[in-house]
Each structure stands twice: as structure tokens, then as C-alpha cells.
């Protein structure tokens, strides 16, 4: 037992300022989420309802076990990209008949549920999570197909959608398609490749080519029902396994299918009782500094996230800019790596590499709490081999085979992003607090570097340096980098699995940990643990 201390002072000016700043961002985030609920717009929602159809989230809500949680993934995917925010698709992990499943639902009120490049990315990411964690995959299909103007970005990579459905099946991960409407042309292969297919009377339309295309291709006169209606597929083609009378009936059948799957978790169950943290998670809003340059102690965050605020710290006196230790979250044992003073020095890199090996040795999942400005630069550190030490850490992260879950609490800059298991290092789940920044370096640094390079270039060519133009360039670059490093921008590009209200961190990690334990937890073996 090593209970973390309560060091948060709610009356301090810093706490209040931090909290106010973060609350503003959360309000903005909540506002964007609220806008999602009208899909592509109120008139499309109304039209959809008038047809007697349920909205994508209504379908999901019905499919889920009552009172069970649902972790929606990348809800703001597409923000800032020109494509609809939400990407015309809802994805997430939820409980169906007592089994955690990956659920994907097209949102037909948003551009007819058409697949654009962001939709595709969101879909593929959901499938990746399902595959890595062995979550049964349920597809609630109703899509107009590819967004044709962007077909060049979709057609080739989009083939992966169908590839992955059947690959999951081959890995013993059940795939289920409930077809609520159009699922035509390439889209027909979503039900086509799924293990179980439910189609709905007079609603499902599943064909390679519709009546106009058939007429053009062969001259044959036909209609939707005979080409791809539910009854035809259930009675004649055999493409449907279950014939549902209406949407609710289809969802009932979907639940019935999951109930009989007997899908078992391969990982161990929770080990501890999962006691709540001792301190109020509300206080998480006052912890991250509103000024990115001021570091904060991740133990204050851990004290409000982990079970019983009980944290057994590893190497607390060594490489103190990185906090490492063991604890439980909702009963699941985890190893934690959390940045403290932002910078990763040689000792921190070594400490991380050793700790990651230990977690692999004991098959313990890892949680990365990012707040890093990157690896230290400078003559001393280069000469002491910061590249070599950082490489050990990145090596350990990259080849670790226990599940990783990453949360960006405030900053994820430079190679620190890689060492602390950023997106490219395959964390099973990656969430971002709304205040966080992600970039190769800070805007001022980046603009400064560009300015210095330009100044040197001008000097070497003997040209006069235009200070005015430089100032304008620096301002422009700083503004651009600042904007592109914002959490919203990153989530819009699907560089995370969603923004997280800090107060939901424990819940999201708990759900993530439960999901990863659906697959087996097996650490990397080989050498003994290198002491570094």
C-alpha cells in the first residue's frame, strides 16, 4: 500500500486558473458533441424519422444492454477537415448481452451515410481495435456507399474494410451485419463478408448493381426488392441469415446472435476490488497547468484515477522527470509511465526501457500519461548518448507486446511522442485531454528554428535579412502550428480515439482495460530484463 497524498489545493490561484481554462475547453468540446446529435442537420433527422427509422445512436442504444456503458470512439473525427464532423459514422465499444463488442453504425442523416476518407479511417480504426482486442464486430449498415468525389482516396484503401471483416472471422472474432437500408455495390460486401447477416423487410437493399445500372449493363428490367430485398436474400439468395420485420426486430436478432456466440475473454479478469480513488476526480480540472510551460505532478492525476489512489512507485529517486509504477485501474493491474517535468533525459529513457521490460515480463498492460516536450537536446546530453538512450526506450515501447493505453494529458512533442507510445506506436486506445497539444515541437520553437535557418541562409548568401518579413513569417508559422497542434485538430484527423473530459479518464481507461483483456495478455519474452 502506497497511498498517494492529496496535494491539490482548491483555493489556490493556480488551481482556479487551471480549472477555468480547462472548463472553457470542455464547454467547447461538449458543444461540439451536442451538435453531433443532429447528424447531418435537423431536416435530415426529421426526414429519417418520418420514414420510421431510428437514428444511428438510437440503434446503438437499443442494441446495448440497458444501463451498460458505451465508449464512443473519435466522435469528432472530421472536425476541421471539410468533411462532416463525426465522419457520418458512429463507432464505439459497448456491452451487448454481456459481451463487449465493437459497434459501427453508419449515420444516414449525414450525407446519406456516404463513406469519405475520414469515414474510412474511422471505420478501419474501429476494426483495428476489434481485431487487436478480439471484440465481436457489429456493423449497423445503412450507407449510400462511397463519397464519389473523393473516390480516389477511398477506393484502394477501402478494400481493406472487406479484407479485415473476413480476416477477423478467420481469427475467431465474430462479425455481424444488421442491414438497415442501403448496402449496395462495394457496400454489399459488408454483409457479404460478415459471419451473420440480418436484413429487414422492405428496408434492406443489398445488391451489386441497382435497377438503373442493371438496365444500362444488360437491359434487364428489375426493381430493388427483386435485386436486393431482405425477403429475396432470406428466401432465395441466402445472403441473409435472419429476416427481421422491422428495425427493432433486427436489433433483437442482433442481440440474440451475440447471446449465442459464447465469446470468451482470453485475458484474466480484474485482480483487485477496483476501489474508487480516494480523491475527487472533479479536481482533475484544476491540475493541468493552463500555461503549458508549467509542469504538474502526474501523481496528482494518478491519485484521482487509479484504484484507492494506491500507487507503488518504481525507481522514484532515479530519472525523476518520468514517474513509473504499478497500480490497478478498476481492478486491472497496470504499469504506468507518466511524464513529470516534461523533458526526457538519459536517465528517464533508461528507466522507461527497464520498466517496460518488467511489465512485459509480468504480462502487465501499460498506461502512458503524456506530458512531454521531448528528449533533451544539448551538447552534454548528446555526448552522453541521448539518441542511444532514447532509442532504448523507443525500442522497448515498439516491441512491447502487452497492451498499451495512452492518454495525452497536456503535451506530446517531438520524439517524446514516440517514446511515450504515440499513435504510431500502436496503443490499443489513445485519448487526449482537451487542453493537450501534439506536434513535432512547440510553435515558438518551430518558428524560431525556421527563422534561424533563414537568417543563416541569408547570411551565407550575403543577402540582407528582411526582419519585417521574418517577424510576419514567425507569427504566421506560430499561429499555424499552434492551431494544428490543438487537441481538436488532432482528433479531427483521427490521430487519437477521441477527446476525453479529464473526469472520465478512469472510466475510459477502465473500459479500455476491460476491452484489451478480451484478448490474451502476453508480454514480450527473449532476453532477461536489462538493468539500465
Amino acid at each position, binding site marked *: 500500500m502506497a497511498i498517494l497524498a492529496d496535494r491539490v489545493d482548491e483555493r489556490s490561484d493556480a488551481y482556479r486558473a487551471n480549472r477555468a481554462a480547462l472548463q472553457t475547453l470542455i464547454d467547447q468540446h461538449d458543444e461540439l458533441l451536442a451538435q453531433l446529435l443532429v447528424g447531418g442537420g435537423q431536416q435530415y433527422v426529421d426526414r429519417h424519422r418520418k420514414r420510421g427509422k431510428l*437514428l444511428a445512436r438510437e440503434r446503438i442504444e437499443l442494441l446495448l444492454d440497458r444501463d451498460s456503458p458505451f465508449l464512443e470512439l473519435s466522435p469528432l473525427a472530421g472536425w476541421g477537415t471539410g468533411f462532416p464532423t463525426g465522419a457520418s459514422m458512429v463507432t464505439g465499444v459497448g456491452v451487448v448481452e454481456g459481451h463487449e463488442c465493437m459497434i459501427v453504425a453508419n449515420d444516414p442523416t449525414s450525407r446519406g451515410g456516404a463513406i469519405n476518407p475520414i469515414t474510412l479511417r474511422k471505420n478501419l480504426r474501429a476494426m483495428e481495435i476489434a481485431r487487436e482486442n478480439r471484440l465481436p464486430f457489429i456493423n449497423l449498415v445503412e450507407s449510400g456507399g462511397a463519397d464519389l468525389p473523393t473516390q480516389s482516396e477511398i477506393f484502394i484503401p477501402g478494400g481493406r474494410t472487406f479484407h479485415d471483416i473476413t480476416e477477423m472471422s478467420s481469427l475467431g472474432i465474430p462479425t455481424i451485419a444488421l442491414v438497415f437500408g442501403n448496402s449496395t455495390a462495394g457496400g454489399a460486401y459488408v454483409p457479404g463478408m460478415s459471419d451473420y447477416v440480418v436484413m429487414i423487410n422492405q428496408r434492406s437493399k443489398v445488391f451489386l448493381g441497382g435497377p438503373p445500372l442493371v438496365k444500362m449493363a444488360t437491359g434487364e428490367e428489375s426493381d430493388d426488392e427483386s435485386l436486393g430485398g431482405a425477403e429475396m436474400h432470406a428466401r432465395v439468395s441466402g445472403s441473409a441469415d435472419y429476416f427481421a420485420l422491422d428495425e427493432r426486430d433486427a436489433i433483437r436478432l442482433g442481440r440474440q446472435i451475440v447471446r449465442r456466440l459464447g465469446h470468451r475473454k482470453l485475458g484474466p479478469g480484474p485482480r483487485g476490488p477496483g476501489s474508487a480513488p480516494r480523491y475527487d476526480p472533479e479536481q482533475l480540472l484544476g491540475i493541468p497547468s493552463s500555461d503549458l510551460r508549467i509542469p504538474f505532478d502526474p501523481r496528482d492525476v494518478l491519485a484521482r484515477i487509479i484504484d484507492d489512489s494506491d500507487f507503488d512507485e518504481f525507481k522514484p529517486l532515479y530519472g525523476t522527470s518520468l514517474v513509473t509504477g504499478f497500480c490497478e485501474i478498476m481492478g486491472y493491474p497496470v504499469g504506468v509511465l507518466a511524464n513529470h517535468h516534461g523533458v526526457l533525459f538519459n536517465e528517464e529513457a533508461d528507466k522507461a526501457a527497464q520498466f517496460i521490460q518488467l511489465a512485459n515480463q509480468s504480462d502487465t498492460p501499460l498506461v502512458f500519461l503524456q506530458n512531454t516536450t521531448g528528449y533533451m537536446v544539448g551538447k552534454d546530453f548528446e555526448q552522453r548518448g541521448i539518441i542511444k538512450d532514447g532509442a532504448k526506450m523507443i525500442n522497448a515501447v515498439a516491441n512491447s507486446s502487452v497492451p498499451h493505453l495512452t492518454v495525452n494529458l497536456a503535451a506530446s512533442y517531438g520524439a517524446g511522442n514516440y517514446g511515450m507510445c504515440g499513435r504510431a506506436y500502436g496503443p490499443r486506445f489513445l485519448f487526449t485531454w482537451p487542453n493537450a497539444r501534439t506536434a513535432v515541437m512547440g510553435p515558438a520553437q518551430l518558428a524560431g528554428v525556421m527563422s534561424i535557418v533563414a537568417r543563416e541562409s541569408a547570411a551565407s548568401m550575403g543577402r540582407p535579412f528582411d526582419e519585417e518579413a521574418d517577424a510576419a513569417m514567425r507569427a504566421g508559422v506560430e499561429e499555424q502550428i499552434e492551431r494544428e497542434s490543438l487537441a481538436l485538430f488532432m482528433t479531427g484527423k483521427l490521430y487519437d480515439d477521441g477527446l476525453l473530459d479529464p473526469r472520465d479518464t478512469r472510466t475510459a481507461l477502465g473500459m479500455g482495460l476491460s476491452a484489451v483483456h478480451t484478448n490474451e495478455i502476453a508480454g514480450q519474452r527473449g532476453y532477461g530484463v536489462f538493468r539500465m
Partner: protein
Amino acid sequence: MINRVLVANRGEIARRVARTCAALGIETVAVFSDADEDALFVREATRAVRLPGTSSADTYLRIDLVVAAALKSGADAVHPGYGFLAENPAFAEAVIDAGLTWIGPPPSAMRSMGSKIEAKRLMRSAGVPVLPEGDEAGFPALVKASAGGGGRGMRIVRSEAELAGAVEAAAREAESAFGDGTVFVERYVERGRHIEIQMFADQHGNCVSLFERECSIQRRHQKIVEESPSPAVNEVLRAEMGAAAVAAARSVGYVGAGTVEFLLAPDGRFYFLEMNTRLQVEHPVTELVTGLDLVALQIAVAEGSPLPPAALHPTVNGHAIEVRLCAEDPAAGYLPQSGRVVDFDIPALANVRVDTGVMSGDDIPPYYDSMFAKVIAWAPTRSGAARLLAFALSSSRVHGVATNRDQLVQVLRHPEFLAGDIDTGFLERNPCTERVDGTHRLAAVAAALVGQARSREQVAVLPLVPSGWRNVTSQDQTVEFDIVGIGLVSVGYRFDRNGAVARLTVDGEPLGVTAGTPLTGSVLLTENGVSTRFHVRIGDQHAYVDSLEGSWTLRLVDRFPLPDSAGLAGSLVAPMPGSILRVLVETGQQVIPGQPLVVLEAMKMEHQVVAPSGGTVTQVLVAPGNQVSTGQALLVLEDKS
């Protein structure tokens, strides 16, 4: 000496008799129909004899089988309880002829009093006042079955025009109920009170009055609240009525426990109604105010002992009130209910007596009387007894079948009742079936929240995550209930990330109520600063909610009804289990809205299934004599439109 008594009855009275027998060291033998095989009184019996069949006529009314059971089981006496064969002189004779002791009055006295017409003639000649009858009755008048009891075959007639129809209906009901269609007409006294004298006589010439009971609170002429003493009877009247009762009993050579029923008119005059030659349902109130055990006295008298001094010189101490808990829905015309009593818990309070035929988990079969328990409270004063009894009832859990419990509580708290201002028309003026407007909403909210707590407690996956947690909230968790008399009620709720109830709606409307953390058995709802605990029991198909606001039964509406469970369109279904008495239409017949189609008998009552709309009968699915269960289709009606 009696050593082994066969109790020729069932339910609470069979247990009541057995209890005293055990206290006296007398063994008992139970008899039971097939429907009662698992009943409490049979489970408790050390000896029991099966009476094959389910209907009363095949079982508890079979003199030959009951007497044979007594002989076979080595009983030396028979106690008939009340109802069934208790007032059947042929049964008493058969018992005596078999060489057994009959714990009851002489058959001759039973026979004299058994015919109401004969009894009234006897009383008139003995100087006991009786109501004018026949042509002298005038209007309003009451048509009664001569062999009747319990209000069956009884009709109030207010004009000449109604008379013939009422006589015919009463005769038919009497014929079917008692095998004797004889009816008579007597004056009907408006605002009369039902006062009866418990008398007791031994074989040594002692005959005493154990004072009155008032049983004016009646529904459909059946008593549901009884008390002793009566607030309408003073010492003088008590003495007069007691003397009249003793005179009545003596005139027929009565021995044992008997009750002489009188109608007390508003002008203070009283009239003999009838004499019940048996132990009464409501005998406990007399026991609680006199301190006597009437069953023990019955046995002593049957054994030939003289009445003890305590019975010969009885005194009244305090006040006792009894209520009859019946499986019926007062708001739906006292529609009888049957089924499993999921929970039956009455708080153990000093001075509250519970005589019950069922425990939690027992079934109430559809074949017999709907009364399944009596609750009796004693206090030094009448108002104290009413308060205690209302408290005991309102704090009780009675789940699984609809009962008159809430109605009884309302009666006991009604100002007119508390003022002693009651008569047999009380429930017609004050149905006591009103509910505080909107409390069903609170009940539904409580049921939803507790159901949620239960389901969260049982989950194996993500049990520690806040209930219904969402990072993108699009809608409330919704639960739908079906409440009899109200219809569908939809509850929406949402928890915040800390697991507290953050939002409550009913039928989409926000409710001005906050909720505490729901537990698996109850939840605290707060309205206007006052918190009320709602206890909820979640069954397979129903939620049962109890609170100070009353109790509710809510049917859980399946989120995913099977597509074929809606049934055949246009089919009319049985509203309760029972047997088909008559089918009044045939296939192809045109019917008008409200036209009776099928008559069903359940729990001793006739119920008509009427056409909800005009149309053509396309199928008749049942025939007279068929047993049907609730919801079973009886016939199919094709709408005219």
C-alpha cells in the same frame, strides 16, 4: 374427549382451527383439492387426505368424500370452518351418523335457520323483529336467495319494473351457487347498519351473547371490515339485541357458536336478518375484545363441557377491527385475481393478528374465495385500532396479485369511518379506490431506478463503470411499464459520471423530483424537500412498488417484443382465469358494441365479456365448461369497419 379433528375446510380458517387444536393437544387432519396440494394449510398438516379435483363441487362440497376422509384418517370429530359444508345440515347428519363428533350446532337448528324464509317465520313468532316481505316489502326491496350467504344471489330493486328481472337473475345465481333457486323479497332499509350478535350455547342450557360485531363496510353485500364493539350500539341496545339473539337461538334449540345478524335502521330499530349457524369469518374481533378462543369453546361444547365462567360472564375490553384481504381489484369492479403471491409480509406488531392462508410464494387458485388473509388489530379505543390496522396494512408488502389492501387502508382512514358514521352503503358513497394523482409516476421512477441498480449489480462486465455511462450522451436510458388502469408509462433517467441520478423524466416530461442512489431494494425520492422511500421488488415480469403513497404493480414492457406475441387481431381474451359458463353468440353473428358475448365464472363471480365494438363473430374458440386462463382468446370479432 376429542383427539383428532378433521378440518373440512381450506385456507386461513383451516389453519385457524388447527392452531387452537394444537394448543389443546388435539391432532388435525386436513383435506385438500388438487389445486390446494401445495397450499400452506396442507404443507403444515401432519395428516392430510386428498379430495380429487379442483372445483368446490368436486372436493370441499363432497359430503361423502369428506366423511370418508375423516373415517379413513382416524378422526373422531369434524370441524367445518365457515363456508363450504359448514351450514349444510346433511353434512352434519352424515358426520354424526358416521359416529363422529360434529363441532357445530344440531342439524335440526341448522335446518331451521338454513332457510331464510323459515327462519324469519320462526323469529316473528319468537317476538324478534323482522323486515316486511313479499307484497308488504314495498320499494326499495331486496331480492335474496333463501339458501344464500355472502351476498350471492342478492339484488336491490328500486321499482316494480326491475323486479322480475332481478328475481330471475338472483334465482339463477342461487341455483348455480347453492343448488337451490328459492328467492324472496324483503324491504330494503336505506343506510342500514349490519350489526350481528355472536352467541354461544352449550348442551347444558347455557346460552349467552358475546356481544355485537359491526360489519357495515361491505362490497357487493360482502363484508370486508368488521369490528367489535359497534360505535352504533350502546349498553341498552346491546342488551336488547343480545336478548333477541339468545331468544332466537333458544327457539331452535341451538348449541355451539352462532351469529344472529340484524339490520340496524337509522331510527334505531333493528330487524332480524338471518342466523349463521357456524363460526364466522370475523370471529377474531370478538376473540380480541373478550379474550375468549371461540374455536376452543366450540370444541369444549362439542365435547359436552359447559361453557366456562369467562364465557358465561363475558366482558368487552377495548376495540378490535378486522379487515379481509382479498385477491381482487376494487378499481376494476372487484375483478378477482389469482396467481402467485410473490411477497406477503405484514409487519409483526404487538396487537396485530394475522390469520392467513398464504405465505410469500404461495398461489391463490382461481377456484375458491378470493379472501386469503385477515388482519385484525386491537387497541383500547376504536380510533386507536383503526390507526394501528391502517399502519400495519400500509407498511405491508403484498405483491404478485392485485388486492384490496389500499382500499382497506383508505376505509380505515376515512373521516366517516373514523366518526363511526357508516352503513352498508359506505363503499358505494366512498369507493376508497382513489389514488393521489400522479403517484404512479413516482412508482414508475422508483421501479426503473431500482431495476437499474439490480441489473448493474448483476453484470459481469464493466461493473465499476457508472451506470449507463456515455462520453457522448444522446438519450436517456428508458424503461417502459404497463400499469393497470393507467396504461403505458415511460421512464427516462440518466446518471452522471459520479453515479448520481442526474435526470428523470416520465413520458418525456422532466419530473420535479430528485433521487438518491438507488439501492437494489429501494430508492429515496425527494419532492419539495421531503424524501419518501419507495420499496421495490423486481419480479420476472413485474415490479412491485410500496411507499407511503400506496402500492403499485407495474408490468415491465419488453424492449424487444416477439413479433408474433401481439396475438390474433380482433380476438377477445379472458380477463381472468375461470370457467366458461355460457357462450351467448355463434359464428357469423352480428354483434353491437357492449353486447355480452361470453359469461365466465371465476372466484364465485360471473363476469361478462362484451363486444368492444360492433362487428361479426368470425370464430368461437371456447365452449361452456372450458377452463380458460388469463389472456386466452375466447372468440374472434371482425370489426365492421
